[in-house]
């Protein structure tokens, strides 16, 4: 019979907290990066220039249809060989995760924008707004409100995806967990603690998303 001993967790608490800090900082960075890439890619998708649409679609499909683990390894090990671009593990991880997230954000943002009644752009145009002003003042504010639950969902996935950066030895929560497991010979307790860490942060967030969905659903 296996004897659980969670006291080791307390012993390594600072490592865990450091890892959690890295994970949270990483998530914030790749959400900002991802939403930025997503905004750019979705405006290219909706552009009237064919070339921009093709490039954006290629970007989105490449990152959406390949595993994030492969992208991480590829960004760190293959880019230096192919393109001569040397990156630290942190930069490579940030880039790969932002692109991966960006491809999903792009589809969410594009969907939100095209879901707005074309009558809204028509009314804005009839009042003398340029397409850019109409997008900023009339379309995006309505579209963003509709996108919030989907964007939050994707961001929750992004939070968990950061766990993969441990393969590039970025000291996130999972990586620190591995270290603790090796050191303490208590992998079961360690990984349980890691899972609890993720859950404790994400569960309240999912509750909030569900609440938001209900509120915006009731409004329509």
């Amino acid at each position: 019979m296996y004897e659980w001993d969670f006291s080791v967790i307390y012993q390594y608490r600072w490592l865990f907290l450091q890892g959690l800090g890295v994970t949270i900082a990483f998530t914030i960075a790749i959400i900002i990066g991802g939403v930025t890439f997503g905004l750019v890619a979705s405006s290219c998708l909706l552009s009237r220039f064919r070339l921009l649409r093709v490039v954006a679609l290629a970007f989105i499909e490449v990152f959406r249809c390949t595993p994030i683990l492969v992208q991480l390894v590829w960004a760190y090990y293959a880019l230096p060989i192919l393109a001569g671009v040397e990156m630290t593990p942190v930069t490579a991880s940030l880039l790969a995760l932002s692109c991966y997230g960006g491809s999903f954000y792009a589809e969410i943002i594009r969907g939100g924008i095209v879901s707005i009644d074309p009558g809204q752009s028509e009314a804005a145009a009839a009042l003398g707004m340029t397409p850019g002003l109409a997008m900023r003042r009339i379309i995006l504010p309505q579209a963003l409100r509709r996108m919030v639950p989907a964007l939050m969902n994707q961001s929750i996935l992004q939070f968990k995806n950061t766990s993969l950066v441990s393969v590039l030895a970025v000291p996130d929560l999972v990586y620190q967990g591995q270290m603790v497991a090796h050191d303490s010979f208590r992998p079961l307790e360690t990984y349980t603690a890691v899972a609890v860490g993720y859950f404790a942060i994400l569960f309240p967030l999912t509750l909030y998303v569900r609440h938001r969905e209900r509120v915006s659903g009731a409004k329509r």
Partner: protein
Amino acid sequence: MNTSLPMIEITALRKSYGDLEVLKEINLKVETGGVVSLIGPSGSGKSTLLRCINLLVVPDDGAIRVGKTAFSFGQALQPPRSRTLADFRSRTGMVFQNFNLFPHMSVLENVMEAPVHVRRLPKAAARDMAMTQLEKVGLADRAAQMPETLSGGQKQRVAIARALAMEPEVMLFDEATSALDPELVGEVLQTMQKLASDGMTMVIVTHEIAFARDVADRVVFMRDGYVVEDGPAREVIENPKSEATQSFLSHYHKARSAH
């Protein structure tokens, strides 16, 4: 009546969607302060013609002049830039069948939006302007409400106030009462009638034949992309000359003589 140039002048206008020719060489003039009703069966091109007047639809060929601004269209000519289009449209008002109010803004914000962000009026001046227009349509007391709390007729009156707040030279109405419950049509028509008697130049696409007869000074009957008949409102409706106009209006006349 103004004897100088007409406010709106449309010359040899053509528009096609693919193989479908929607407007076939349209000529139309509207005097300053004139009220013209466009009537005709659906698919006759009347809505497209209306949308050409403020270039929401850009014609393939022909020329349009509204006030002092003139555009020519043709294969050899560059279509106008979006900045130019926006400037031009800011001086024409349009009211849509489905109101198209901005649902994320209050009634007052809807009316203030274009004066503040297109004409760049100071907020206080725009607010005064918006309140004046809301008073004109009888909805000043609804300024703080959101559009979703209004009835259809009230929404359409806000849409009219929103267009008026830009102080347009002409007002275009695209079936402004078609989406309304019958009991709400009256208040919108009344607002439009008041606007007409204030001297606004108006082009009205409508199915309200009685309204066209009483408020418009001219009625233009369209079918299959052509102007079939164009004359004084009462004359066109009471004594249509062409067979197409007669058969289109026969339903209206029958319903009326039944009363």
